[in-house]
């Protein structure tokens, strides 16, 4: 039994299109989710969610994705869910995403897991993100048997781990809060990687030239959170890691 949590902040027509596309991919899952929580983080734009499966929670004030996800987690835990999965509104799930994530986590080897993230667009910048593994998580070196961290757009936790390790709500934006969670989680549990659980992320680049500013802003957002984040994890940050891409997505001993 799994629940999916989607924090969302819809501010443009593009966000809305992304969200509808995600909901369609949720509808088409080979193994349906038990529950889907769409946590609206006080979006400035109003919209409808015509999908009957989705339970919409609307926050009165904007508190960032960490708070939104925590709210979804507490609802999911109350409902007795075993597995809690996370994605973002600008993602598109593979038809078997839920099935693969659930069966991977159900094996009990890992308390949390991440899947493989591909770029939805076809620009050079999208290609760069795929090679760079920008949102594809990181292997913990040297063994590559578990993850150093996994971004929350393609992430899942067993219920007990989600209960024990909530997102830190002091992170105000969608940058660093997932890395922080993984570093804390790894003090006790392991995070596995399931390459078969695929999803696509839309970075929103229309072309390589027009998307360049967006590309810069994206890294500026991510990198500006990293210094403060690392300072909070003095010991764990020293672990060697390697970002995941098509060339290393399968762990060597499988």
């Amino acid at each position, binding site marked *: 039994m799994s629940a999916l949590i989607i924090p969302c902040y819809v501010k443009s027509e593009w966000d809305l299109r992304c969200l509808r596309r995600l909901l369609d991919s949720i509808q088409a899952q080979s193994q349906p989710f038990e529950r889907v929580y769409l946590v609206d983080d006080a979006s400035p734009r109003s919209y409808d969610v015509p999908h009957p499966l989705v339970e919409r929670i609307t926050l009165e004030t904007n508190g960032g994705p960490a708070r939104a996800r925590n709210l979804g987690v507490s609802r999911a835990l109350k409902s007795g869910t075993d597995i809690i999965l996370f994605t973002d509104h600008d993602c598109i799930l593979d038809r078997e995403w839920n099935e693969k994530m659930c069966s991977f986590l159900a094996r009990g080897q890992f308390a949390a897991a991440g899947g493989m993230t591909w770029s939805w667009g076809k620009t*050079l*910048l999208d*290609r*760069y993100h795929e*090679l*760079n593994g920008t949102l594809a998580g990181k292997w913990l070196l040297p063994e590559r048997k578990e993850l150093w961290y996994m971004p929350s757009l393609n992430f899942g936790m067993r219920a007990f781990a989600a209960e024990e390790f909530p997102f*830190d709500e*002091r992170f105000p934006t969608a940058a660093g809060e997932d890395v*922080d969670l993984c*570093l*804390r989680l*790894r*003090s006790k549990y392991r995070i596995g990687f399931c390459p078969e659980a695929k999803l696509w992320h839309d970075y929103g680049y229309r072309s390589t030239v027009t998307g360049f500013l967006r*590309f*810069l802003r994206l*890294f*500026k957002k991510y*990198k*500006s959170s*990293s*210094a*403060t*984040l*690392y*300072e*909070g*994890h*003095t*010991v*764990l*940050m*020293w*672990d*060697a890691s*390697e970002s995941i*891409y098509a*060339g290393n997505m399968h762990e060597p001993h499988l």
Partner: protein
Amino acid sequence: MSLIYRLKGEQPTFMHGLHDYLGEIGPFVARVRNPLLKLPMLALKSIEWSIYRWHKTPIRRFYGVKGNELIYMITNACNDRCPKCAIWERPEPRTQHLPVERFLECLRRLHQNVYQVTLTGGEPLLFKKDVMLIAEEARKLGVPMVTITNGRFLDQTFLTRYKGLGHILVVSVDSVDRDKWNEFRGTKSFDVVMPRIMLAKQILGSQLRIQSVLSQESEAEVAKVAAWCREQGLQHNIQLYQDFGTVFWRSTRTTAEMADDPVPCAARKNICIYPNGDVVKCFDHRRIPVAKEPLGNIATQDIIEILCGKHSVEVSRAMKTCNLPCKQMSCNRPQALLFK
């Protein structure tokens, strides 16, 4: 890795930057199979790296966050003979004692990343002159310092100078009962130390702390020490007893019941220097197979090189999962975010 211990906080050198750049670029370029894509991908990666460099350094500087505690075990020698402590039994030979100048150099190299320097031992005040030199250098570099002593060598001159430097002095007290004290210390030092604590209280005021080692034997006594400290208006800390290799005992009382600050002064220690200059990340490192050998020695090596070495990274990984009893001293626990 190289960004963690910067050579100079404000001015990383060109070679330092180049090393970091090549370390990022090399593995990435190897991923690009299509030769036509190599150049554009290299350009994009360079842009990403530049953003990384730009944001990493200034933010550290703005927040002023410093993640490491530097602990210097200045000597194994001690003028007490505590039966539960075996350190005094193996004082380092004079020829192996690290010259203080080498430690001062280490402190200068690391001070941008150090939130506290802690002097411990043995009895650090056996090297009172060195302690004062380190205290003065720490003051100059803006690093708070803590000295943990048994209190036998405290005197008015030392305390007055120490007070002026603004550092914290911690006196170890495991009992306020004369007989118990002498039993715990292995020497009849109660009547020597107690008046010195009162003198320290008078001179240092809030810069004085009392610390007790909580063990099976001292459990009842530590509660009395805590009560005495409350009477005297002194801050009391508890250090959990570590036997370094044998049985571990856990108190039935919570430390919070008995101390103002339940976090041991030595917690969060992650850069430890032994009397001969050996560098370790954990005093109990000999129980971790990969960490048996020290990471290096500051008598002959640069501390930043030592901490950025491969061995150092391996040891950190091992510490994270070692599951030894000393984990409760929080060396392995991820710290909470430091900005609030």
